[in-house]
């Protein structure tokens, strides 16, 4: 296995070295384009193509050719194969995408050997960027958004919190982040519930949360059906009425938000991007994405891809279109720009995005649509998971 990997790496490196400055820059994007997670692929595509279109179709004077590959679902072996093909067969200059952390980990040896910069648009496990020098991440990590939330809860005078997370890697990450920071702030996590990933009936957990005597519940759930089920259970089992505060992160993400109906009103979350973020950059982003795909939702996936292309733009500029992974990576360390989510920069040591995290409340905006209204800015946050 290891020998094979080495061999592939050598071949990949040989190909990578041999190329000269090209007029067309090839960007390989690995994302789910089929199956239950296909909407991520569509949003990445809209975000990335929207960015290029907004720059007039060229980045630093070079044409951009996107090559899309379908990661399908959490499937590391398949994702590594796709990355190898992109490097060896398609000879891409840059890669981006990946929704699932295990898939992101799997491509590390490929990009390390071929020195191909890889921009992670979504996968949010902290230590991904430590696995190769050619990773840079424009999404977020659970530590990054959870730590300010824990500080906020403590500042509000909340003493007892119960955590309820979905029982898989990001959920456990979220639970650890909240527990660690909340204890540091002098609060107490009275109980930690890990909910099985195939849970559909959340009423039992709602009852346990109610019985725990906590003043607030810190929640982490993967997007889609579980979010809706949990929020319904939170309302209908009287947790909201009992004043148990909802502390979440991506649960009120724009992709599902309209589906919640009134049950989402008043939910508080800490997150780095809201479609309701009031800035000129966000307007430009919204208009550009709508031109590429009028159905695309503006959320963390779309903005992750948009900013991912901003990073690649910078790398193309720095290398003049030459394939030079090291030079490209050096250029983006510390790079600052104005993102649709506010001012951001790439942390030179962790190669993870430093960004503002906001406290938001779900409200009814113009036209009766639900929005994540930003009510407080926690200021620039690094990835607290990597920089403990």
């Amino acid at each position, binding site marked *: 296995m290891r020998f094979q990997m080495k061999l592939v790496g050598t071949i990949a490196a040989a190909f990578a070295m041999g190329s000269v400055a090209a007029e067309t820059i090839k960007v390989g994007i690995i994302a789910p384009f089929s199956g*239950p997670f296909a*909407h991520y692929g569509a949003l990445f595509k809209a975000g990335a193509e929207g960015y290029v279109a907004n720059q007039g179709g060229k980045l630093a004077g070079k044409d951009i050719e996107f090559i899309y590959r379908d990661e399908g679902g959490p499937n590391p072996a398949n994702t590594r194969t796709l990355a190898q093909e992109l490097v060896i067969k398609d000879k891409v200059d840059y890669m981006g995408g990946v929704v699932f952390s295990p898939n992101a980990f799997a491509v590390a040896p490929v990009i390390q050997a071929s020195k191909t910069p890889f921009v992670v648009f979504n996968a949010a496990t902290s230590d991904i960027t430590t696995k190769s020098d050619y990773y840079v991440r424009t999404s977020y990590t659970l530590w990054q958004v959870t730590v300010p939330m824990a500080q906020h809860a403590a500042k509000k005078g909340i003493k007892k919190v119960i955590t309820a997370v979905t029982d898989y890697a990001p959920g456990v990450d979220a639970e650890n982040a909240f527990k660690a920071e909340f204890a540091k702030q002098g609060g107490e996590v009275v109980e930690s519930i890990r909910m099985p990933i195939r849970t*559909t*009936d959340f009423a039992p957990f709602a009852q346990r949360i109610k019985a725990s005597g906590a003043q607030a519940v810190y929640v982490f759930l993967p997007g*889609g059906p579980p979010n809706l*089920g949990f929020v319904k259970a939170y309302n209908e*089992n009287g947790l909201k009425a009992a004043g148990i505060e909802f502390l979440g992160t991506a649960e009120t993400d724009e992709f599902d938000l309209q589906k919640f109906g009134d049950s989402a009103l008043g939910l508080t979350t800490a997150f780095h991007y809201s479609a309701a973020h009031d800035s000129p950059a966000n307007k430009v982003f919204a208009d550009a994405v709508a031109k590429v795909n009028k159905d695309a939702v503006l959320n963390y996936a779309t903005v992750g891809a948009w900013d991912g292309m901003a990073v690649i733009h910078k790398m193309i500029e720095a290398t003049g279109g030459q394939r030079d992974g090291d030079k490209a990576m050096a250029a983006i360390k510390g790079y600052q720009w104005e993102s649709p989510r506010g001012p951001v920069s790439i942390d030179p040591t962790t190669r993870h995005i430093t960004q503002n995290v906001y406290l938001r409340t779900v409200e009814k905006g113009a036209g009766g649509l639900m929005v994540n209204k930003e009510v407080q800015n926690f200021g620039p946050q690094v990835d607290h998971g990597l920089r403990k």
Partner: protein
Amino acid sequence: MLLLANILIDGIAYGMVLFIIAVGLSVTLGLMRFVNLAHGAFAMTGGYIAAWLVREQGLSFYLGVPLAVLATGLLGALLEVTVLRRLYRRTELQQVLFTIGLTFLFVATANLLAGPEVQLIPLPPALSHAVDLGVRTLPAQRLLVIASGLLVVLAAYWVLNRSRFGIWLRATVDNTAAASALGIPVQRVYVLTFAVGAALAGLGGILGAELMPLEPYYPVKYLVLVLVVVAVGGMGSIAGSLAAALTLGIIDTASKYLASDWGSLFFFLAMAILLAWRPQGLLTARKA
């Protein structure tokens, strides 16, 4: 004590949803001897139609839901007449392969028409508030689910055991040729039974949407649960399906209250034990 009450209340509500969806499959599988793995697709279809009628078309919940159930039944009848009818005499493997294929067709169609998002069926005010039971509050929707489940049990029992149609059905599946010779409209019996099975699945999909959210992968996701209920309950046994659904629902709920770290281990452990104890199903006395 409160914990026990909580487990029972939530477990019964969950079990009833499983029952309403599973009972139709139990009838087609046990009585008609037709392996219909597309059953979950009918549940999803019912839910999607209800969501479309109530949310998009603005129909009232009380009108939209019966219409959706009816439409699902009609779709079932249509499929029976056009394709499924030809499969009754095929081997079980062929039935399995065809209906699984049909399931994926439904998944793709739902994805194409409505996108990958979850579909919600807006509840009327009377059902969306919480009812105070003294020990705790319970969403009124769950009470509707429990009541509907009981009604389905009674109605199905009466139809199968007391009505003329029930006699026809049993005669038809036991010996089609003889039933036909006696003047029983065999084909019509099959169509009707299949349509009712599909309609019940649709009802389960609608009422259960709060617990099993409607999305394109619904038929694949929940098929296992439904099959487990039918297997444990015994094919064709209404009372058995009810007993199995409630037992498994309560066990699964109890494990969420007491040992959530173990995931769905206890659900499947219970299934294995029950099947080892009564391989023909909980309440099936003899023969298969």
